[in-house]
Protein backbone atom coordinates (compact mmCIF):
# COMPACT_ATOMS: atom_id res chain seq x y z
CA UNK A 1 0.00 0.00 0.00
CA UNK A 2 1.55 3.21 -1.13
CA UNK A 3 0.23 6.37 0.47
CA UNK A 4 -0.07 9.63 -1.38
CA UNK A 5 -0.43 13.18 -0.17
CA UNK A 6 -4.15 13.05 0.34
CA UNK A 7 -3.93 9.77 2.26
CA UNK A 8 -1.43 11.33 4.63
CA UNK A 9 -3.60 14.41 5.04
CA UNK A 10 -6.60 12.26 5.86
CA UNK A 11 -4.67 10.22 8.42
CA UNK A 12 -3.14 13.34 9.95
CA UNK A 13 -6.60 14.82 10.33
CA UNK A 14 -7.93 11.66 11.99
CA UNK A 15 -4.94 11.78 14.38
CA UNK A 16 -5.29 15.56 14.81
CA UNK A 17 -1.74 16.31 13.74
CA UNK A 18 -0.80 19.50 11.96
CA UNK A 19 1.92 18.73 9.42
CA UNK A 20 4.07 21.27 7.66
CA UNK A 21 2.92 21.55 4.09
CA UNK A 22 6.43 20.77 2.82
CA UNK A 23 6.77 17.66 4.96
CA UNK A 24 3.70 15.86 3.70
CA UNK A 25 5.46 14.28 0.71
CA UNK A 26 8.26 13.08 2.96
CA UNK A 27 5.82 11.48 5.36
CA UNK A 28 4.01 9.86 2.46
CA UNK A 29 7.23 8.22 1.31
CA UNK A 30 8.30 7.12 4.80
CA UNK A 31 4.91 5.79 5.74
CA UNK A 32 4.73 3.89 2.47
CA UNK A 33 8.09 2.29 3.24
CA UNK A 34 6.91 1.29 6.69
CA UNK A 35 3.74 -0.17 5.22
CA UNK A 36 5.85 -2.12 2.74
CA UNK A 37 7.73 -3.60 5.71
CA UNK A 38 4.48 -4.38 7.48
CA UNK A 39 2.98 -6.01 4.43
CA UNK A 40 5.48 -8.84 4.74
CA UNK A 41 2.85 -10.22 7.12
CA UNK A 42 0.70 -11.09 4.15
CA UNK A 43 2.70 -14.25 3.51
CA UNK A 44 2.01 -15.66 6.97
CA UNK A 45 -0.65 -18.34 7.08
CA UNK A 46 -2.93 -17.23 9.89
CA UNK A 47 -6.00 -19.30 9.10
CA UNK A 48 -7.54 -20.57 12.32
CA UNK A 49 -5.11 -18.55 14.44
CA UNK A 50 -6.65 -16.62 17.30
CA UNK A 51 -5.66 -12.97 17.52
CA UNK A 52 -3.43 -12.31 20.54
CA UNK A 53 -4.15 -9.08 22.37
CA UNK A 54 -2.21 -9.78 25.56
CA UNK A 55 1.00 -11.67 26.20
CA UNK A 56 -0.31 -13.39 29.32
CA UNK A 57 -3.46 -15.40 29.71
CA UNK A 58 -4.84 -13.60 32.68
CA UNK A 59 -8.34 -12.42 33.49
CA UNK A 60 -9.23 -8.89 34.45
CA UNK A 61 -9.02 -8.29 38.18
CA UNK A 62 -11.92 -6.39 39.69
CA UNK A 63 -11.64 -3.53 42.11
CA UNK A 64 -13.88 -3.20 45.13
CA UNK A 65 -16.40 -0.37 44.75
CA UNK A 66 -14.89 2.13 47.18
CA UNK A 67 -14.14 5.82 46.91
CA UNK A 68 -10.39 6.02 47.42
CA UNK A 69 -9.42 9.18 45.55
CA UNK A 70 -9.54 12.46 47.45
CA UNK A 71 -10.00 15.84 45.76
CA UNK A 72 -6.62 16.88 44.35
CA UNK A 73 -7.89 19.45 41.93
CA UNK A 74 -5.48 22.19 42.90
CA UNK A 75 -2.49 19.93 42.51
CA UNK A 76 -3.73 18.51 39.21
CA UNK A 77 -4.59 21.90 37.77
CA UNK A 78 -1.33 23.53 38.82
CA UNK A 79 0.17 22.31 35.54
CA UNK A 80 -2.87 22.97 33.35
CA UNK A 81 -2.45 25.36 30.42
CA UNK A 82 -5.62 27.32 31.21
CA UNK A 83 -8.17 27.00 34.01
CA UNK A 84 -10.84 29.21 35.50
CA UNK A 85 -13.14 28.48 38.43
CA UNK A 86 -11.87 24.94 38.47
CA UNK A 87 -12.74 24.38 34.80
CA UNK A 88 -10.29 23.58 32.03
CA UNK A 89 -10.70 26.15 29.29
CA UNK A 90 -10.56 25.23 25.61
CA UNK A 91 -11.68 27.02 22.46
CA UNK A 92 -15.45 27.07 22.16
CA UNK A 93 -17.09 23.69 21.79
CA UNK A 94 -19.72 23.87 19.08
CA UNK A 95 -22.45 21.24 19.08
Amino acid sequence: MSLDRSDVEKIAHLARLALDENQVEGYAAELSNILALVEQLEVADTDNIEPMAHPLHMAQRLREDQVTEPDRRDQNQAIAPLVENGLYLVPKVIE
Partner: protein
Amino acid sequence: MQWETVIGLEIHTQLASKSKIFSGASIAYGAEPNSQACIVDLGFPGVLPVLNEAAVDMALMFGLAVDAQIGSRSVFARKNYFYPDLPKGYQISQFELPIVGRGSLTVDLEDGQQKEIGITRAHLEEDAGKSLHEDFHGMSGIDLNRAGTPLLEIVSEPDMRSIKEAVAYARKIHQLVVYLGICDGNMQEGSFRVDANLSMRPKGQQEFGTRTELKNINSFRFLERAMNFERERQIDLLESGKAVVQETRLYDADRDETRSMRSKEEANDYRYFPDPDLLPVEITEQRLAQAKERMPELPDQKKARFASDYQLSDVDATLLTQSRPQADYYEQVVATGADPKIAANWVTVELAGALNKAGLELSDSPVSAEHLGGLLKRIADSTISGKLAKQVFEAIWQGEGDADTVIEAKGLKQITDTGQIESIIDEIIAANPKQVEQFQAGKDKLLGFFVGQVMKQTQGKANPGQVNQILLKKLKG
Protein backbone atom coordinates in the same frame (compact mmCIF):
# COMPACT_ATOMS: atom_id res chain seq x y z
CA MET B 1 -49.23 7.27 1.44
CA GLN B 2 -49.39 5.31 4.68
CA TRP B 3 -46.16 5.60 6.64
CA GLU B 4 -44.82 3.24 9.22
CA THR B 5 -42.49 4.45 11.97
CA VAL B 6 -39.48 2.31 12.88
CA ILE B 7 -37.73 3.06 16.15
CA GLY B 8 -34.83 1.62 18.05
CA LEU B 9 -33.57 3.10 21.31
CA GLU B 10 -30.13 3.40 22.84
CA ILE B 11 -30.44 4.01 26.53
CA HIS B 12 -27.50 5.13 28.67
CA THR B 13 -28.01 4.34 32.32
CA GLN B 14 -25.55 5.63 34.89
CA LEU B 15 -24.91 2.81 37.28
CA ALA B 16 -25.48 3.52 40.96
CA SER B 17 -22.02 2.59 42.20
CA LYS B 18 -20.06 4.61 44.72
CA SER B 19 -16.93 5.07 42.65
CA LYS B 20 -16.12 5.37 38.98
CA ILE B 21 -15.87 2.46 36.60
CA PHE B 22 -12.08 2.60 36.30
CA SER B 23 -10.96 4.74 39.24
CA GLY B 24 -11.63 5.30 42.91
CA ALA B 25 -13.10 8.79 42.46
CA SER B 26 -16.62 9.49 43.69
CA ILE B 27 -19.51 9.76 41.22
CA ALA B 28 -21.77 11.83 43.50
CA TYR B 29 -23.76 14.40 41.53
CA GLY B 30 -23.30 18.11 41.87
CA ALA B 31 -19.75 18.41 43.23
CA GLU B 32 -17.48 21.37 42.53
CA PRO B 33 -16.10 21.23 38.96
CA ASN B 34 -13.24 18.76 38.58
CA SER B 35 -13.11 18.01 42.31
CA GLN B 36 -14.08 14.41 41.55
CA ALA B 37 -11.77 13.96 38.60
CA CYS B 38 -8.67 12.08 39.72
CA ILE B 39 -5.56 11.54 37.60
CA VAL B 40 -7.07 8.41 36.06
CA ASP B 41 -10.23 10.27 35.03
CA LEU B 42 -8.15 13.14 33.71
CA GLY B 43 -6.12 10.78 31.55
CA PHE B 44 -2.79 11.86 33.00
CA PRO B 45 0.31 10.32 31.46
CA GLY B 46 1.05 6.90 32.93
CA VAL B 47 -2.29 6.17 34.61
CA LEU B 48 -4.14 2.90 34.15
CA PRO B 49 -7.74 1.75 34.53
CA VAL B 50 -8.87 -0.90 37.02
CA LEU B 51 -12.41 -2.22 36.64
CA ASN B 52 -15.01 -1.66 39.39
CA GLU B 53 -16.73 -4.92 40.29
CA ALA B 54 -20.01 -3.16 41.12
CA ALA B 55 -20.35 -2.11 37.47
CA VAL B 56 -19.90 -5.71 36.35
CA ASP B 57 -22.40 -7.04 38.87
CA MET B 58 -25.00 -4.42 38.01
CA ALA B 59 -24.66 -5.19 34.32
CA LEU B 60 -25.14 -8.88 35.06
CA MET B 61 -28.30 -8.15 37.04
CA PHE B 62 -29.70 -6.27 34.08
CA GLY B 63 -28.76 -9.13 31.78
CA LEU B 64 -30.55 -11.61 34.00
CA ALA B 65 -33.63 -9.36 34.16
CA VAL B 66 -34.01 -9.30 30.38
CA ASP B 67 -33.19 -12.97 29.95
CA ALA B 68 -30.10 -12.13 27.97
CA GLN B 69 -27.26 -14.29 26.79
CA ILE B 70 -24.30 -13.72 29.06
CA GLY B 71 -20.99 -14.96 27.77
CA SER B 72 -18.21 -16.27 29.94
CA ARG B 73 -15.85 -13.65 28.55
CA SER B 74 -16.30 -9.97 27.96
CA VAL B 75 -13.83 -7.52 26.44
CA PHE B 76 -13.30 -3.77 26.75
CA ALA B 77 -12.38 -1.79 23.67
CA ARG B 78 -11.27 1.74 22.98
CA LYS B 79 -13.43 4.02 20.89
CA ASN B 80 -11.09 6.68 19.57
CA TYR B 81 -12.13 10.25 18.90
CA PHE B 82 -11.07 13.71 20.01
CA TYR B 83 -13.43 15.77 22.10
CA PRO B 84 -12.80 18.06 25.08
CA ASP B 85 -15.07 16.07 27.40
CA LEU B 86 -13.13 12.89 26.56
CA PRO B 87 -9.80 13.28 28.36
CA LYS B 88 -7.89 10.31 26.95
CA GLY B 89 -8.94 10.85 23.36
CA TYR B 90 -10.73 7.54 23.57
CA GLN B 91 -13.66 6.16 25.48
CA ILE B 92 -13.30 2.78 27.14
CA SER B 93 -16.34 0.92 25.94
CA GLN B 94 -17.18 -2.50 24.58
CA PHE B 95 -17.39 -3.54 20.96
CA GLU B 96 -17.06 -7.25 20.42
CA LEU B 97 -18.13 -9.45 23.36
CA PRO B 98 -20.30 -7.00 25.34
CA ILE B 99 -21.12 -8.11 28.86
CA VAL B 100 -24.83 -8.56 28.08
CA GLY B 101 -25.81 -10.20 24.82
CA ARG B 102 -29.15 -10.67 23.16
CA GLY B 103 -32.24 -10.43 25.38
CA SER B 104 -35.79 -9.12 25.29
CA LEU B 105 -38.38 -7.19 27.23
CA THR B 106 -42.17 -7.48 27.08
CA VAL B 107 -43.95 -4.17 27.05
CA ASP B 108 -47.63 -3.50 27.88
CA LEU B 109 -49.29 -1.33 25.29
CA GLU B 110 -52.21 1.03 25.83
CA ASP B 111 -54.67 -1.22 24.03
CA GLY B 112 -53.98 -3.96 26.53
CA GLN B 113 -51.77 -5.88 24.09
CA GLN B 114 -48.24 -6.92 24.90
CA LYS B 115 -45.23 -6.72 22.63
CA GLU B 116 -41.81 -8.23 22.94
CA ILE B 117 -38.98 -5.83 22.12
CA GLY B 118 -35.59 -7.31 21.29
CA ILE B 119 -32.56 -6.09 23.18
CA THR B 120 -29.51 -6.33 20.94
CA ARG B 121 -26.94 -5.92 23.67
CA ALA B 122 -25.99 -3.96 26.75
CA HIS B 123 -22.40 -2.94 27.28
CA LEU B 124 -20.37 -1.20 29.94
CA GLU B 125 -18.54 2.01 29.21
CA GLU B 126 -17.31 5.16 30.86
CA ASP B 127 -19.27 8.38 30.73
CA ALA B 128 -17.70 11.55 29.34
CA GLY B 129 -17.32 14.87 31.14
CA LYS B 130 -19.28 18.01 30.41
CA SER B 131 -18.56 21.06 28.31
CA LEU B 132 -20.04 24.20 29.82
CA HIS B 133 -20.92 26.72 27.21
CA GLU B 134 -21.30 29.80 29.34
CA ASP B 135 -18.95 32.32 27.97
CA PHE B 136 -15.46 32.12 29.41
CA HIS B 137 -13.94 34.89 27.27
CA GLY B 138 -15.13 33.07 24.18
CA MET B 139 -14.02 29.65 25.46
CA SER B 140 -15.74 26.59 26.86
CA GLY B 141 -15.15 25.27 30.36
CA ILE B 142 -14.59 21.57 30.85
CA ASP B 143 -15.75 19.74 33.96
CA LEU B 144 -14.57 16.15 34.11
CA ASN B 145 -16.37 15.06 37.27
CA ARG B 146 -18.73 12.93 35.22
CA ALA B 147 -15.87 11.40 33.19
CA GLY B 148 -15.54 7.77 34.17
CA THR B 149 -18.99 7.35 35.69
CA PRO B 150 -20.08 3.80 34.85
CA LEU B 151 -22.65 3.53 32.11
CA LEU B 152 -24.63 0.59 30.88
CA GLU B 153 -25.68 1.28 27.32
CA ILE B 154 -28.78 -0.72 26.45
CA VAL B 155 -29.33 -1.05 22.73
CA SER B 156 -32.68 -2.24 21.42
CA GLU B 157 -33.53 -3.80 18.12
CA PRO B 158 -35.42 -1.53 15.71
CA ASP B 159 -38.55 -3.34 16.86
CA MET B 160 -40.82 -0.49 17.76
CA ARG B 161 -43.43 0.58 15.24
CA SER B 162 -44.92 3.59 16.95
CA ILE B 163 -43.89 6.41 19.22
CA LYS B 164 -46.17 5.06 21.93
CA GLU B 165 -44.39 1.70 21.80
CA ALA B 166 -41.04 3.39 22.07
CA VAL B 167 -42.10 5.45 25.06
CA ALA B 168 -43.61 2.38 26.73
CA TYR B 169 -40.35 0.47 26.18
CA ALA B 170 -38.25 3.33 27.55
CA ARG B 171 -40.48 3.58 30.60
CA LYS B 172 -40.26 -0.14 31.16
CA ILE B 173 -36.47 -0.11 30.99
CA HIS B 174 -36.49 2.84 33.38
CA GLN B 175 -38.75 0.97 35.79
CA LEU B 176 -36.55 -2.11 35.52
CA VAL B 177 -33.20 -0.45 36.21
CA VAL B 178 -34.65 1.49 39.13
CA TYR B 179 -36.22 -1.71 40.48
CA LEU B 180 -32.91 -3.49 40.17
CA GLY B 181 -31.33 -0.69 42.15
CA ILE B 182 -28.65 -0.29 39.47
CA CYS B 183 -29.66 3.25 38.44
CA ASP B 184 -31.34 6.11 40.26
CA GLY B 185 -33.33 6.86 37.12
CA ASN B 186 -32.99 10.61 37.46
CA MET B 187 -33.47 11.93 33.93
CA GLN B 188 -32.95 15.58 34.87
CA GLU B 189 -29.50 14.82 36.21
CA GLY B 190 -28.72 12.64 33.22
CA SER B 191 -28.70 9.31 35.03
CA PHE B 192 -31.01 7.86 32.40
CA ARG B 193 -30.55 9.14 28.86
CA VAL B 194 -32.47 8.01 25.84
CA ASP B 195 -31.28 8.36 22.25
CA ALA B 196 -33.80 7.42 19.60
CA ASN B 197 -33.08 6.08 16.14
CA LEU B 198 -36.10 6.81 14.03
CA SER B 199 -36.90 6.15 10.39
CA MET B 200 -39.98 6.01 8.23
CA ARG B 201 -40.97 3.59 5.53
CA PRO B 202 -44.06 3.12 3.41
CA LYS B 203 -46.38 0.68 5.11
CA GLY B 204 -45.76 -2.83 3.79
CA GLN B 205 -42.17 -2.13 2.73
CA GLN B 206 -39.58 -4.52 4.12
CA GLU B 207 -36.42 -2.41 4.01
CA PHE B 208 -35.81 0.23 6.61
CA GLY B 209 -35.68 3.86 5.61
CA THR B 210 -32.77 6.18 6.42
CA ARG B 211 -32.69 6.89 10.14
CA THR B 212 -31.69 9.82 12.23
CA GLU B 213 -30.44 9.64 15.78
CA LEU B 214 -32.07 11.96 18.29
CA LYS B 215 -30.10 13.07 21.33
CA ASN B 216 -30.37 15.45 24.26
CA ILE B 217 -33.71 14.16 25.52
CA ASN B 218 -34.12 14.42 29.27
CA SER B 219 -37.69 13.37 29.99
CA PHE B 220 -40.24 10.91 28.65
CA ARG B 221 -42.42 13.81 27.60
CA PHE B 222 -39.59 15.24 25.53
CA LEU B 223 -38.85 11.81 24.12
CA GLU B 224 -42.38 11.65 22.81
CA ARG B 225 -42.25 15.19 21.49
CA ALA B 226 -38.86 14.79 19.85
CA MET B 227 -39.99 11.65 18.05
CA ASN B 228 -43.26 13.29 16.99
CA PHE B 229 -41.40 16.23 15.55
CA GLU B 230 -38.90 14.03 13.81
CA ARG B 231 -41.57 11.75 12.42
CA GLU B 232 -43.36 14.71 10.86
CA ARG B 233 -40.13 16.16 9.57
CA GLN B 234 -39.16 12.94 7.87
CA ILE B 235 -42.62 12.42 6.37
CA ASP B 236 -42.54 15.97 4.99
CA LEU B 237 -39.17 15.34 3.42
CA LEU B 238 -40.17 12.02 1.93
CA GLU B 239 -43.50 13.26 0.63
CA SER B 240 -41.85 16.16 -1.09
CA GLY B 241 -39.46 13.74 -2.75
CA LYS B 242 -36.43 14.61 -0.64
CA ALA B 243 -34.13 12.23 1.13
CA VAL B 244 -33.60 11.88 4.86
CA VAL B 245 -29.94 12.40 5.73
CA GLN B 246 -28.45 9.93 8.18
CA GLU B 247 -27.23 12.15 11.00
CA THR B 248 -27.39 12.94 14.68
CA ARG B 249 -29.96 15.54 15.65
CA LEU B 250 -30.28 17.38 18.92
CA TYR B 251 -33.69 17.92 20.45
CA ASP B 252 -34.31 21.50 21.49
CA ALA B 253 -37.02 21.43 24.14
CA ASP B 254 -37.53 25.21 24.11
CA ARG B 255 -38.35 25.23 20.42
CA ASP B 256 -39.73 21.71 20.40
CA GLU B 257 -37.73 20.73 17.35
CA THR B 258 -34.73 18.66 16.38
CA ARG B 259 -31.74 20.11 14.59
CA SER B 260 -28.67 18.75 12.96
CA MET B 261 -25.53 18.48 15.08
CA ARG B 262 -22.93 20.18 12.96
CA SER B 263 -19.87 19.08 14.88
CA LYS B 264 -20.60 15.39 14.48
CA GLU B 265 -21.42 15.57 10.81
CA GLU B 266 -18.09 14.34 9.56
CA ALA B 267 -18.06 10.59 9.26
CA ASN B 268 -16.47 9.14 12.37
CA ASP B 269 -13.89 6.44 12.22
CA TYR B 270 -13.70 5.29 15.82
CA ARG B 271 -10.90 2.76 15.30
CA TYR B 272 -12.20 0.38 17.94
CA PHE B 273 -9.63 -2.09 19.23
CA PRO B 274 -9.32 -4.17 22.42
CA ASP B 275 -8.03 -1.99 25.26
CA PRO B 276 -4.54 -3.31 26.03
CA ASP B 277 -4.70 -1.86 29.55
CA LEU B 278 -7.60 -4.13 30.48
CA LEU B 279 -7.75 -7.89 30.33
CA PRO B 280 -10.75 -9.95 29.29
CA VAL B 281 -13.35 -10.10 32.05
CA GLU B 282 -14.25 -13.61 33.03
CA ILE B 283 -17.85 -14.06 34.09
CA THR B 284 -17.60 -17.06 36.35
CA GLU B 285 -20.55 -19.24 37.32
CA GLN B 286 -20.03 -18.05 40.84
CA ARG B 287 -20.28 -14.38 39.97
CA LEU B 288 -23.39 -15.01 37.95
CA ALA B 289 -24.92 -17.00 40.79
CA GLN B 290 -24.19 -14.15 43.18
CA ALA B 291 -25.87 -11.70 40.84
CA LYS B 292 -28.89 -14.01 40.69
CA GLU B 293 -29.12 -14.06 44.45
CA ARG B 294 -29.04 -10.32 44.55
CA MET B 295 -31.93 -9.99 42.10
CA PRO B 296 -35.01 -8.41 43.63
CA GLU B 297 -38.50 -9.45 42.53
CA LEU B 298 -39.02 -7.82 39.13
CA PRO B 299 -42.01 -5.60 38.28
CA ASP B 300 -43.80 -8.22 36.19
CA GLN B 301 -43.35 -10.92 38.81
CA LYS B 302 -44.47 -8.59 41.54
CA LYS B 303 -47.53 -7.55 39.58
CA ALA B 304 -48.55 -11.16 39.05
CA ARG B 305 -48.03 -11.95 42.70
CA PHE B 306 -50.03 -8.92 43.85
CA ALA B 307 -52.89 -9.85 41.56
CA SER B 308 -53.04 -13.40 42.89
CA ASP B 309 -52.05 -13.01 46.55
CA TYR B 310 -54.09 -9.89 47.22
CA GLN B 311 -56.87 -10.52 44.74
CA LEU B 312 -56.25 -7.17 43.13
CA SER B 313 -57.51 -6.00 39.76
CA ASP B 314 -54.98 -5.79 36.95
CA VAL B 315 -55.15 -2.02 37.12
CA ASP B 316 -54.43 -1.91 40.85
CA ALA B 317 -51.63 -4.46 40.61
CA THR B 318 -50.03 -2.49 37.79
CA LEU B 319 -50.37 0.79 39.62
CA LEU B 320 -48.99 -0.55 42.88
CA THR B 321 -45.97 -2.19 41.28
CA GLN B 322 -45.10 0.86 39.21
CA SER B 323 -42.23 1.54 41.55
CA ARG B 324 -40.48 -0.56 44.11
CA PRO B 325 -40.93 1.92 46.98
CA GLN B 326 -44.67 2.06 46.32
CA ALA B 327 -44.99 -1.71 46.16
CA ASP B 328 -42.97 -2.03 49.34
CA TYR B 329 -45.11 0.61 51.05
CA TYR B 330 -48.27 -1.18 50.03
CA GLU B 331 -47.02 -4.47 51.38
CA GLN B 332 -46.09 -2.84 54.65
CA VAL B 333 -49.65 -1.50 54.95
CA VAL B 334 -51.08 -4.94 54.21
CA ALA B 335 -48.70 -6.44 56.75
CA THR B 336 -50.42 -4.43 59.50
CA GLY B 337 -53.49 -6.54 58.85
CA ALA B 338 -55.29 -4.18 56.50
CA ASP B 339 -57.65 -5.49 53.87
CA PRO B 340 -55.56 -5.68 50.65
CA LYS B 341 -58.22 -4.16 48.42
CA ILE B 342 -58.99 -1.28 50.75
CA ALA B 343 -55.27 -0.75 51.27
CA ALA B 344 -54.78 -0.69 47.48
CA ASN B 345 -57.43 1.96 47.18
CA TRP B 346 -55.93 4.11 49.89
CA VAL B 347 -52.40 3.84 48.55
CA THR B 348 -53.24 4.50 44.92
CA VAL B 349 -55.95 7.10 45.44
CA GLU B 350 -55.82 8.94 48.76
CA LEU B 351 -52.11 8.74 49.47
CA ALA B 352 -50.99 9.11 45.85
CA GLY B 353 -53.33 12.08 45.44
CA ALA B 354 -52.08 13.80 48.58
CA LEU B 355 -48.46 13.24 47.62
CA ASN B 356 -49.07 14.50 44.14
CA LYS B 357 -50.81 17.60 45.44
CA ALA B 358 -47.98 18.31 47.83
CA GLY B 359 -45.35 17.51 45.20
CA LEU B 360 -43.74 14.91 47.41
CA GLU B 361 -42.07 11.57 46.70
CA LEU B 362 -43.35 8.51 48.49
CA SER B 363 -40.08 8.35 50.41
CA ASP B 364 -40.96 11.75 51.89
CA SER B 365 -44.55 10.87 52.77
CA PRO B 366 -45.63 12.29 56.14
CA VAL B 367 -47.92 9.27 56.53
CA SER B 368 -45.97 6.12 57.16
CA ALA B 369 -47.17 2.68 56.13
CA GLU B 370 -47.75 1.86 59.82
CA HIS B 371 -49.87 4.98 60.25
CA LEU B 372 -51.96 4.19 57.23
CA GLY B 373 -52.33 0.59 58.40
CA GLY B 374 -53.50 1.86 61.79
CA LEU B 375 -56.10 4.05 60.14
CA LEU B 376 -57.42 1.22 57.96
CA LYS B 377 -57.71 -0.96 61.05
CA ARG B 378 -60.01 1.61 62.66
CA ILE B 379 -62.16 1.66 59.57
CA ALA B 380 -62.34 -2.12 59.50
CA ASP B 381 -63.34 -2.41 63.15
CA SER B 382 -65.92 0.35 62.72
CA THR B 383 -64.25 2.70 65.17
CA ILE B 384 -64.61 5.39 62.55
CA SER B 385 -66.63 5.71 59.42
CA GLY B 386 -65.11 5.80 55.99
CA LYS B 387 -66.09 9.41 55.67
CA LEU B 388 -64.32 10.48 58.86
CA ALA B 389 -61.33 8.39 57.90
CA LYS B 390 -60.33 11.09 55.39
CA GLN B 391 -60.37 13.63 58.15
CA VAL B 392 -58.18 11.37 60.28
CA PHE B 393 -55.81 10.85 57.33
CA GLU B 394 -55.56 14.59 56.94
CA ALA B 395 -54.65 14.96 60.63
CA ILE B 396 -52.02 12.21 60.45
CA TRP B 397 -50.56 13.97 57.38
CA GLN B 398 -50.38 17.17 59.43
CA GLY B 399 -48.35 15.34 62.02
CA GLU B 400 -50.99 15.12 64.71
CA GLY B 401 -50.10 11.56 65.60
CA ASP B 402 -51.29 8.11 64.64
CA ALA B 403 -54.92 7.20 63.90
CA ASP B 404 -55.88 6.32 67.47
CA THR B 405 -54.42 9.53 68.85
CA VAL B 406 -56.26 11.61 66.29
CA ILE B 407 -59.57 9.79 66.80
CA GLU B 408 -59.30 10.21 70.53
CA ALA B 409 -58.24 13.84 70.40
CA LYS B 410 -60.94 14.83 67.97
CA GLY B 411 -63.60 12.60 69.52
CA LEU B 412 -64.30 10.98 66.21
CA LYS B 413 -65.08 7.58 67.57
CA GLN B 414 -68.12 6.11 65.82
CA ILE B 415 -71.32 5.74 67.76
CA THR B 416 -72.28 2.09 67.64
CA ASP B 417 -74.38 2.01 70.77
CA THR B 418 -77.83 0.96 69.42
CA GLY B 419 -79.66 2.54 72.33
CA GLN B 420 -77.99 5.89 71.80
CA ILE B 421 -78.70 5.80 68.08
CA GLU B 422 -82.33 4.79 68.72
CA SER B 423 -82.96 7.66 71.07
CA ILE B 424 -81.48 10.15 68.59
CA ILE B 425 -83.67 8.67 65.85
CA ASP B 426 -86.71 8.88 68.07
CA GLU B 427 -86.07 12.56 68.59
CA ILE B 428 -85.74 13.19 64.90
CA ILE B 429 -88.89 11.27 64.02
CA ALA B 430 -90.75 13.24 66.61
CA ALA B 431 -89.45 16.53 65.31
CA ASN B 432 -90.32 15.83 61.68
CA PRO B 433 -93.85 14.41 61.50
CA LYS B 434 -94.47 15.79 58.02
CA GLN B 435 -91.53 13.98 56.50
CA VAL B 436 -92.48 10.79 58.35
CA GLU B 437 -95.90 10.98 56.83
CA GLN B 438 -94.56 11.52 53.33
CA PHE B 439 -92.11 8.65 53.73
CA GLN B 440 -94.77 6.33 54.90
CA ALA B 441 -96.83 7.42 51.90
CA GLY B 442 -94.16 5.97 49.65
CA LYS B 443 -91.57 8.74 49.22
CA ASP B 444 -88.58 6.40 49.81
CA LYS B 445 -86.05 9.06 48.87
CA LEU B 446 -86.68 10.77 52.16
CA LEU B 447 -84.64 8.10 53.91
CA GLY B 448 -81.59 10.13 52.94
CA PHE B 449 -83.03 13.15 54.70
CA PHE B 450 -83.36 11.20 57.94
CA VAL B 451 -79.86 9.74 57.66
CA GLY B 452 -78.53 13.22 57.09
CA GLN B 453 -80.31 14.47 60.17
CA VAL B 454 -78.82 11.70 62.28
CA MET B 455 -75.33 12.37 60.95
CA LYS B 456 -75.76 16.06 61.58
CA GLN B 457 -76.83 15.38 65.11
CA THR B 458 -73.89 13.01 65.71
CA GLN B 459 -71.32 15.00 63.71
CA GLY B 460 -71.00 12.05 61.38
CA LYS B 461 -69.99 9.65 64.06
CA ALA B 462 -73.01 7.33 63.94
CA ASN B 463 -72.43 4.04 62.25
CA PRO B 464 -74.19 4.44 58.89
CA GLY B 465 -75.26 0.79 58.69
CA GLN B 466 -76.89 0.85 62.05
CA VAL B 467 -78.53 4.19 61.34
CA ASN B 468 -80.11 2.83 58.15
CA GLN B 469 -81.31 -0.29 59.80
CA ILE B 470 -82.89 1.40 62.82
CA LEU B 471 -84.42 4.17 60.75
CA LEU B 472 -86.12 1.74 58.44
CA LYS B 473 -87.42 -0.29 61.32
CA LYS B 474 -88.82 2.75 63.11
CA LEU B 475 -90.23 4.54 60.08
CA LYS B 476 -91.95 1.53 58.64
CA GLY B 477 -93.24 0.86 62.13
